[in-house]
């Protein structure tokens, strides 16, 4: 693993830390996979697959609960200090962020059901194009933030924070595009609202990825950067 989790005099302590670390990565992988699947159902116009995605969210919730139990146990047994303490707190927070990513993914899957499981006319591809690009962007952010966590790479975490401001811009311009689209064709208003909800969910996932990146920076430097400007974060790291 890495030096945050290894080297304790008590070997079991290492094992427990590594287990938790891997659990986070596992939850992260599952969340990423869910996101991909949800977007896929949207593209495939497949509401039944979307239902599968929603039911798979329960798996994520179970892992979240398991992670909670594990780190409470670890706190009781080991009374972590310094970087172990930060690691535990980071893990705890990252897990709940990832669990919320799952919730957002569920919203996207619900979107598929809502759009394609009714008799109404399917939406224009144009409406859903932004969702696809943003999903790819957000998926990348999530991936980088998890790599940053795994490798304790503050620079990668910083990248995620940078990407988040790009995402904000992307989100705003996507909204603008949708607005123009609706102005041209007012019948598409129903689908547009769905699309906005989807974009909103993706924007939130990006926010969670940014949070995770912030925790990673806290884990490495010991200072909480979540509510600081990008410049001041950069100054602290470099």
């Amino acid at each position: 693993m890495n030096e945050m989790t290894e080297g304790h005099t008590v070997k079991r302590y290492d094992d427990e830390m590594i287990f938790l670390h891997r659990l986070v990565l596992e939850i992260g992988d599952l969340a990423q996979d869910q996101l991909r699947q949800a977007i896929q159902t949207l593209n495939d116009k497949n509401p039944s697959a979307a239902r599968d995605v929603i039911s798979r969210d329960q798996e994520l919730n179970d892992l979240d609960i398991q992670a909670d139990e594990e780190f409470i146990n670890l706190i009781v047994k080991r009374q972590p200090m310094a970087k172990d303490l930060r690691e535990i707190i980071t893990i705890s927070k990252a897990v709940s962020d990832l669990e919320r990513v799952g919730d957002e993914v569920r919203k996207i899957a619900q979107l598929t059901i809502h759009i394609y499981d009714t008799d109404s006319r399917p939406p224009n591809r144009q409406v859903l194009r932004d969702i696809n690009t943003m999903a790819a962007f957000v998926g990348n952010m999530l991936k980088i933030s998890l790599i940053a966590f795994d490798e304790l790479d503050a620079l990668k975490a910083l990248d995620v924070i940078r990407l988040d401001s790009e995402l904000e811009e992307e989100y705003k311009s996507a909204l603008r595009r949708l607005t123009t689209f609706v102005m041209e064709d007012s019948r598409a208003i129903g689908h547009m609202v769905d699309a906005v909800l989807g974009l909103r969910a993706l924007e939130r996932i990006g926010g969670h990825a940014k949070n995770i990146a912030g925790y990673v920076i806290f884990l490495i430097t010991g200072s909480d950067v979540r509510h600081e400007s990008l410049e001041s974060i950069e100054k602290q790291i470099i």
Partner: protein
Amino acid sequence: MQFNTQVVSPVTPLMVCTDIELIAAHDNRKTVGKISVTNPRMRCRNVNVFYGDKQAINRVNLDIGRHEVIAMIGPSGCGKSTFLRCLNRMNDTIDSCRVTGEILLDDQDIYDKKLDVVPLRAQVGMVFQKPNPFPKSIYENVAYGPRIHGLVSSKSDLDVVVESSLCRAGLWDEVKDRLDQPGTGLSGGQQQRLCIARTIAVGPEVILMDEPCSALDPIATAKIEGLIDELREEYTIAIVTHSMQQAARVSQRTAYFHLGDLIEVGETNQIFTNPQHKLTEDYITGRFG
């Protein structure tokens, strides 16, 4: 990965200390963190301790502020107890022990040749690892210090001192009906509080505690810790402890010693959540082989 090693590497500490004299005195053994405080009661500069040829403490600089509890932690044999014992010259009793450097108590060098060690120890009291009441009555234990220093003129004054000392040590209610019974008949925690009462009966300015809870059960430990917290209002306290949790609970500042060097000193919260030195980090996270 590479970034990470930079942060905790001992060669380039993240926080560079600002004390000029420190930088002058140290080369590769820079103490990480701020060694000085704005209202110091004791100031230690370039303190070295030798046992014969062996150097036990290596150029330690540290201030101890008024009304603060400073905790000294570190692995066994790191010199924290030795350093503590320098502060009231308890090391004088060891023949081979030699102390160099400067330790000031309120601007008075306590290692001054002309300074008498007896009044110094009245000013800087000490509580030891093992509760060590005298094999005398509870009353005599507390009264002994004021009596030998001639602090009181009459028996009734002495009674007042004994009562107030026992009260401040949180022991009065437990022993007021049996002051004439032997101090060694008390429980371990009570004995240790008796020792604290005995120390404060002399009216010291600084109280040194050398692992005061290591022989006690958790409840007695909690009582002593509560007492330390209360005593802080009147005294300056330096405590050596093996329990990091204890250091985190009772102290405002924490100093980490390693092989005779003062590695890091800083606010207790900072030391326990985000230590700057790799050695400190390894010690408090339990990574010493």
